[in-house]
């Protein structure tokens, strides 16, 4: 009951905001020749709630790229329409339908939460709307649910942790216990790690789970102490990641059993984790100190625009715009030449702040996955864990 009440209040607000946008928009919408009208980009992101900061950074990253291109992609003006998805899957279908139907968005960019993104994918498949996912990692989006008009500028859950399996095996680690929340993202990340780790001769001692989003870990930490594995591999995010890392350190386990994790364990959470996070190694498609020209230039431009330090979410938003640009440039701004545009996007080679970025047949990024270690309050680069990691896109029928 409670969530429904929030939705109606917020929906009312977004509805009002949408109406206000429409009232201003006629001047832009009136030109008779469709091609001269701006391309309408629908940003469906979490602007409030737990993931609000992520939504803001993706939004800023996307707009930064468009600004750098003078407000045009492929010579065509870009207009924006925003919807706050609040990370609520139950409202996702309605929000997406509104963007595609009433707002007539030509492209939809969204979103952070996997449950919301999958609902959006369903609508995009039905309405054939061009969609770029700038974060949500659910394997299914570029697996069984893949479609020509659906792209992802971020990662698949499988992709971020698979390389870690070999990293640990190569380090001579034999027995690993895993801990995560019992939900899709957790299972996908742990399974990908386990797949590669056991392939290289490793042994998973025990897969422990905590109900999502519970943060009481004490019983399982005691279990870890009893099992005495060589290492622990884990995935948590946000408040759960902070508490898990701190509890792990407070239990003194870090001294004898090193903690490894998916990159999200230490991303955006380091100020709150403090010293407890020092030395934790994780894999992700980005590192805070990635010293390549594209990243240096991006971080500077992002800082100038927003006065914030850019992160992976900002990069994913930025690259979503770069991907759209690749398609729009190929068709000279005429998004009606759809097949040509989609082909160009699928073949895009982007010089991303994260490193070289291209796309597989399911439209999931092919990208480097980096091994990072927490030092000086940053996720510092150790090495490339695996070059050009390509998600197997299991269940995808696209050839």
């Amino acid at each position: 009951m409670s969530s429904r009440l929030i939705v109606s209040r917020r929906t009312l607000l977004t509805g009002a905001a949408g109406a206000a946008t429409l009232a201003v928009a006629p001047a832009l919408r009136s030109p008779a020749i469709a091609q001269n009208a701006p391309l309408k980009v629908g940003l469906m992101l979490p602007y409030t709630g737990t993931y609000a900061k992520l939504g803001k950074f993706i939004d800023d990253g996307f707009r930064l790229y468009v600004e750098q291109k003078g407000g045009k992609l492929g010579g065509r003006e870009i207009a924006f329409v925003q919807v706050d998805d609040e990370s609520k899957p139950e409202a996702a279908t309605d929000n997406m339908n509104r963007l595609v139907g009433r707002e007539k968005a030509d492209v939809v960019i969204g979103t952070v939460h996997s449950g919301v993104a999958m609902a959006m994918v369903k609508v995009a498949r039905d309405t054939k709307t061009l969609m770029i996912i700038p974060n949500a990692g659910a394997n299914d989006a570029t697996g069984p649910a893949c479609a020509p008009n659906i792209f992802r500028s971020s990662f698949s859950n499988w992709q971020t942790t698979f390389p870690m399996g070999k990293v640990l095996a190569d380090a001579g680690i034999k027995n690993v216990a895993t801990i995560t929340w019992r939900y899709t993202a957790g299972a996908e990340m742990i399974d990908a790690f386990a797949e590669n780790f056991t392939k290289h001769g490793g042994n998973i001692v025990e897969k422990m789970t905590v109900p999502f989003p519970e943060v009481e870990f004490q019983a399982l930490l005691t279990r870890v102490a009893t099992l005495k594995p060589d290492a622990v591999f884990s995935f948590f995010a946000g408040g759960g990641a902070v508490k898990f890392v701190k509890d792990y350190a407070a239990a003194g386990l870090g001294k004898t059993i090193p903690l490894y994790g998916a990159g999200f364990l230490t991303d955006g959470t380091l100020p709150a984790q403090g010293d407890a996070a020092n030395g934790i190694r994780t894999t992700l498609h980005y590192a805070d100190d990635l010293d390549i020209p594209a990243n240096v230039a991006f971080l500077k431009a992002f800082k100038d625009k927003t006065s914030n330090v850019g992160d992976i979410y900002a990069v994913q938003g930025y690259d979503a715009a770069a991907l759209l640009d690749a398609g729009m440039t190929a068709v000279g701004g005429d998004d009606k030449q759809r097949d040509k545009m989609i082909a160009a996007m699928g073949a895009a080679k982007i010089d991303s702040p994260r490193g070289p970025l291209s796309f597989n047949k399911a439209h999931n990024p092919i990208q480097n996955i980096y091994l990072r270690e927490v030092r000086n309050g940053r996720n510092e680069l150790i090495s490339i864990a695996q070059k050009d990691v390509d998600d197997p896109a299991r269940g995808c029928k696209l050839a």
Partner: protein
Amino acid sequence: MDLVTFGVQLLNAIQYGMVLFLVASGLTLVFGILGVINLAHGAFYMFGAYLAYWIAAYTGSFWIAMVAGVAIAFVVGLVLENVFIRRLYGRDHLVQVLLSFGLILVIDEAREILFGKDVHSVAPPAWLSGSIQLTDNLSYPVYRLAICGFCLIVAALIFFVITRTKIGMIVRAGAENREMTRVLGIKFDVVNRYVFAVGIALAALGGIVIAPISTVFPGMGDGMLILSFVVVVLGGIGSVAGAAVGALLIGLTDTFGKVFFPSVSSILIYVLMAAVLLWRPNGILGRREV
């Protein structure tokens, strides 16, 4: 499971139960004595944790944060009772749910305006920040043990006030028969105001004390609210002793459930609640008629 591990898990269970009791005791007071369902209890718990973070960051002292945080929550409780809650005594529970749900929204927005939505952590006092080596590779933070002791003191205080003082007598009389207490000329309404404020202060105190071992984050009150209601219903509505028993039972069930039956651990406490309610519909220490 060897004896040492069992002992450690038992300690985990009791410590978790103590924390639950601290938060739930305020809820059971307000629910049992005033008959008000306060859904915003979890929100006040979260607000207390943010206050602890904010005041500790400014003053550098966890103790100042604790005293000031509880004082602020107490005053907020008095004001809220005066402006809103007192109009709801004896009214339909649905009205109370609506009001306290509104309070959740207001507190959440206030938190966002005042403190933002970032995740924070709070350092425990320096002399409690160490840890004790339990087994060859496992140590136990001293602060967690200190929480156990602290919760026992709070519990003893609540028991003392309710069973041994005049205020406690009025509170018990009011909970038993509101109209009769009023007719006897006892200023029950004034006592109500303080009971409500104490309930809010206890929620905030829970958030403050737990902040160093938990993390301070926007949604932290939601899960705690549900657990608190389970504790209150399990123990018997309005019974502080019942809340203590209920909290310990849940701590044990949750901890050993995670160890022995990990795949169903999330529903075990609700199974426990259902079983207890079948056996005693008014909770373990609940009165027959509420």
